[in-house]
């Protein structure tokens, strides 16, 4: 993960917690939500590597990664505003026509990511694995419906 994305995500975290001066331009919203997803994926990759035995299990690292995911998980929804269906994005227009379902899937992802953090803190690798599976399924549910396939 490069420094730029970390800076963008830090900015995004500040925006979400502090008072928002104004809505970012559509192209900035797209960048911000991608940065949050990228960092979430960065945290997830570390947990996944432990779950698949690619690196040794470490409770501390699992907690750090899961907390990064938790912090990032609430950010993307702030940046699916008007006009952000066009540009450097694979977001499908259905997001804006099926907003309630999209939001429900977003809520589901946020709650599953929260459970990953709880499982990480428990120090139980098996619990971490099943929580990560559920979170992965929640990610996929949204990708399947609302993200353009890669070419």
């Amino acid at each position, binding site marked *: 993960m490069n420094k730029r994305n970390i800076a963008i995500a830090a900015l995004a975290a500040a925006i979400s917690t502090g008072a928002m001066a104004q809505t970012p331009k559509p192209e900035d919203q797209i960048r911000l939500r991608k940065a949050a997803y990228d960092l979430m994926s960065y945290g997830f*990759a570390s947990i996944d590597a432990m779950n698949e035995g690619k690196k040794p299990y470490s409770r501390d690292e699992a907690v750090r990664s899961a907390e990064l995911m938790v912090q990032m998980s609430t950010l993307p929804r702030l940046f699916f505003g008007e006009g952000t269906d066009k540009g450097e994005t694979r977001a499908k227009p259905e997001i804006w026509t099926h907003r309630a379902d999209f939001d429900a899937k977003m809520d589901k992802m946020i709650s599953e990511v929260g459970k990953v953090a709880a499982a990480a803190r428990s120090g139980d690798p098996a619990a971490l694995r099943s929580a990560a599976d*559920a979170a*992965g399924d929640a*990610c996929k549910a949204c990708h399947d419906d609302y993200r353009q*396939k*890669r070419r």
Partner: protein
Amino acid sequence: MPQPTGRGWDLPTRLFHWALALLVVFSFATGEVGGSWLPWHMRSGYAILTLLLFRLAWGFAGSREARFTSFVRGPRAALDHARALARGNRTLAPGHNPLGGWMVVVLLALAAFQAGTGLFSNDESSHEGPLAAKVSGAVVDRMSALHSWNAWLIAAAVGVHVAAVSVYQWRWRMDVIGPMVSGPSQAAQNALALVLVAACAAAVYWLVVVYPR
């Protein structure tokens, strides 16, 4: 019953066929479901890669009907076979017929392409192939897309294969399924096949576990 003449598909070829069939169905299903099934999808892919490497070797080292030189024939032979079928000549020689031989080549090539692209693919959330970290994100995206599309090409090719076999078997009464179930089996040959499978498994283990470390 093993045939004393030793003609027809040998035991390793028959086992290869049914193992590949099962694994392809399993891989297709787990790939579509995705998520927590992907670790199993990947293991299935490694097993398929092992089988494909073995089949490649067996195409040179196997018994007559398993060898590429015996069944990879030119378009003329395929056409002649089709004409003979059209004329109502329903006699069957042991091994793949000239049309079936091409089906084998196509199925093996598609499966190899699928296993190869899968190594570099990811699911954009929680899982990635063992070599995805070795290449750029753009390559991973392209490989993942090709992997998704090729799954449906394989499904189509399997459909053609099963339909063709069904027509031979039940419409034309040419027994093509029987010889894929029972046939020659020789201890020395089976032992050689086992050694080859072990070597292929070791090569795949190196590729997906040792090398990416």
